[in-house]
């Protein structure tokens, strides 16, 4: 396997893609959004329970490729118990990571999410990795229209 492919499909990514965490409905959710990737027909929904500006619970459902599921799964772990502002900052960092590569971002602040760095070598897959995050942001902002990666 090429080294780029190894970077893209790291063990952690494959694991989260196969067994996504927080792949469930959220009881008492007060923020929700749906995201679509018209390129591949993927669809996912993100639900949040936000209290006092803090994300107390988060889950996602839907269908997607290994990258989009892993990204969504890792995202739910990363933003839980963070404030909405912290989640937004993380969104910006992840977006930069998957578009520009690991050299450009503070990877320490990203923790486990750095496993998504391999995506930067695959421009066609950036949308897969960022769909969940765009949907999270829409949920936080309570945008009424579904999100699209187009």
């Amino acid at each position, binding site marked *: 396997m090429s080294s780029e492919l190894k970077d*893209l*499909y790291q063990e952690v990514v*494959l694991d989260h893609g196969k067994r996504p965490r927080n792949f469930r409905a959220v009881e008492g959710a007060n923020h929700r959004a749906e995201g679509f990737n018209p390129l*591949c027909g993927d669809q996912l929904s993100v639900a949040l329970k936000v209290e006092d500006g803090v994300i107390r619970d988060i889950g996602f459902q839907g269908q997607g*490729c290994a*990258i989009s599921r892993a990204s969504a799964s890792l995202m739910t772990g990363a933003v839980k118990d963070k404030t909405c502002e912290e989640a937004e900052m993380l969104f910006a960092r992840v977006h930069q990571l998957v578009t520009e590569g690991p050299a450009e971002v503070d990877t320490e602040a990203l923790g486990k999410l750095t496993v998504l760095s391999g995506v930067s070598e695959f421009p066609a897959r950036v949308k897969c990795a960022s769909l969940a995050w765009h949907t999270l942001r829409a949920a936080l902002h309570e945008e009424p229209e579904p999100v699209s990666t187009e």
Partner: protein
Amino acid sequence: MSTSGLDVARVRADFPILHQEVRGRPLVYLDSAASGQKPQAVLDAITHFYAHDNANVHRGVHLLSERATEAFEGAREKVRRFLNAREAKEIVFVRGTTEAINLVAQTFGRKHVGPGDEVLITELEHHANIVPWQMLCEQQGARLKYVPVDAHGDLVLDGLEALLTPRTRILAVTHVSNALGTVVPVKELVRRAHAKGVPVLVDGAQAVTHFPVDVQALDCDFYAFSGHKLFGPMGIGVLYGKKELLEAMPPYQGGGDMILSVTMEKTVYNRIPHRFEAGTPDVAGAVGLGAAIDYLEALGREAIAAHDQALLAYAEGALGSVPGVRRLGHGQERSGVVSFVMQDIHPHDIGTILDREGVAIRTGHHCAQPLMKCFGVAATARASLALYNTREDVDALVRGLHKVREVFA
């Protein structure tokens, strides 16, 4: 190598783009259903037009304009012969299949489809043969109905007569499904629709590349295809329409070339096909398409069809040997594509890994989301075949799929 009387090695030599490495591997191009590659003859024809004959058509009195007009109308005649239309005036140049269908929806459709009327399409259609009809039905207060597809990927034609009601104004159907490869028995559909007085539009984008098409034998009322899928340039396409129908249709877009005279008050529209070709057309595109047609006819369309069938059978067999691969589309007659899914592995991931092996396939819903829904999948992986593909290409695909299994083991 030859599977069918077609000298594929010679054909491959005619396509410069195939002779390159991608990702450090020899290119294996299995995405011709999305866009076909261009033989040198097409590239040369376009260059020659711009280098020697370029001028606007139908209006200059000078030699270059004469040559350009001749080249453009010559291409129209080639298309006429290619489809076996009765007259060249039945051939309208458009940007592609999508524009051809929009043209019919917005001219014929607006004229004949009113509130409470029905437009009949099928569950096999891709978005280009769905959305224009949805738009028309919304504009006119009409109803869009679908001929269903069965689990094999064949249309269910038992209930066709019931679907063709006294309110049905047009039936629009694909000739070959871009997502499953199903060949639709268009001739029979036309016969049954005509028996109820319903005209038929055929989307031939995936058909003309694989086997001969005779619009008179089919007796269809409209036939649409794209130049770029037929190994010609992008941005040129064809709408065939029966003369009586085209003549009775209002214009599509207004502008130059589609008029006989314009006064401050009134415009007299030009005759067909020019009435539907407003503005400066893609003359080089038409010339390139003409060259593509010459190329295919020189190879022999029957030989191309035989090659398609032999390679398709080989590909279907070869894919069956990969554990976990499930092929979609077991229609009675198939052409051109193999569509498949792999247990628990998303088509997008398959596509990325194959790409690193130099193998280009399409993954996604193939602009046929309603069809994907019928099969309970969001997407498939699709390898599409063309005259320049070989068994070795299929073998490379299979090797790639074993790599996919390794990554996701």
